[in-house]
């Protein structure tokens, strides 16, 4: 049975469950394998240092995926993701613990759907906000007959 979260169940200010990962070569290499992202700065400490960083560093797009995972974890399979935006402001170093933060900042009913606007970030173990951004998602409503 599919998990359903309804528009009426979510209030402005609500914060979603955190999706968190300690990022190391196991995470990065698995992602490189599916995204065909075998770039030296993500695999080799010397290449990372040559690029001006502390060593090999993680892919921004893996952080990107973690945000989608968090959205699904909160709203279930019925959620319709309309838009997501992130700015990658800090490097993801090896063994960083990255945790998503999602918070509802606006609820709007429009003809196109029941929309939640979210404030998004990915925070590391030092409290650095590495990827500020936003998301816009649509949820089913109990009023539209989808509750059955």
């Amino acid at each position, binding site marked *: *049975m*599919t998990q359903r979260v309804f528009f009426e169940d979510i209030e402005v200010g609500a914060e979603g469950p955190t999706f968190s990962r300690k990022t190391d070569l*196991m*995470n990065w290499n*698995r*992602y490189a*394998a*599916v*995204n*065909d*992202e*075998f*770039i*030296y*700065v993500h695999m*080799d400490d*010397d*290449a*990372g240092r*040559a*690029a*001006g960083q502390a060593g090999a560093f993680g*892919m*921004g*797009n*893996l952080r*990107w*995926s*973690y945000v*989608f*995972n968090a959205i*699904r974890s909160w709203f279930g*399979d*019925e959620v319709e*993701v*309309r*838009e*997501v*935006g*992130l*700015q*990658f402001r800090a490097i993801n170093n090896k063994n960083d613990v990255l945790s998503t933060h999602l918070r509802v900042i606006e609820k709007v009913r429009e003809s196109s759907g029941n929309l939640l606007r979210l404030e998004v970030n990915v925070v590391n173990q030092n409290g650095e906000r590495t*990827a500020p*951004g936003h998301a816009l998602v649509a949820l*089913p409503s109990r009023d539209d007959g989808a509750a059955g």
Partner: protein
Amino acid sequence: MATQDEALDTLVTPQIVASKGVWGPDTVSYPVSQSDIRKWSIAVYWPETPPRLFWDEAYARTTRWDGIVAPEDFNPFGWPVAPPRLPGAQPGLRPRKGENVLNGGQVDTFFTRIRPGDVITERARVADWDERTGRLGLMLFLRHESEWHNQLGELVKRRMATSIWY
């Protein structure tokens, strides 16, 4: 003493200027398979079991999507037969100024979901750019706009992405 590379006062090339606003050639994906979607979801959820929507067709048919769909973050363009040029620093080679690149971020707007069997076509163009000086010296913030359509001509997503060259 500054090297010739370090003395550059711009990273904007004539090629970048000439390509502004001009759609490049289409890139066409291989057909998306259920296995592509399953493997992607395993990788991004590792070591957690990914949602059944991405690997269990019987379950996926009970959802509003009426079958397996790809995660919104899925990339169908990996593994072309001709290997792409590797960007950025490489072992044993000192990158020249402007050859290093970071992902600066992106905004994606989603329309139709990707399903097994889909063939996705991408087109992209340079939108604009600006240059700043920071910890890594002169940096070029280059913004690309791209669109994905499926084999039915349906818009899948639009992306505005920023790459940072330094």
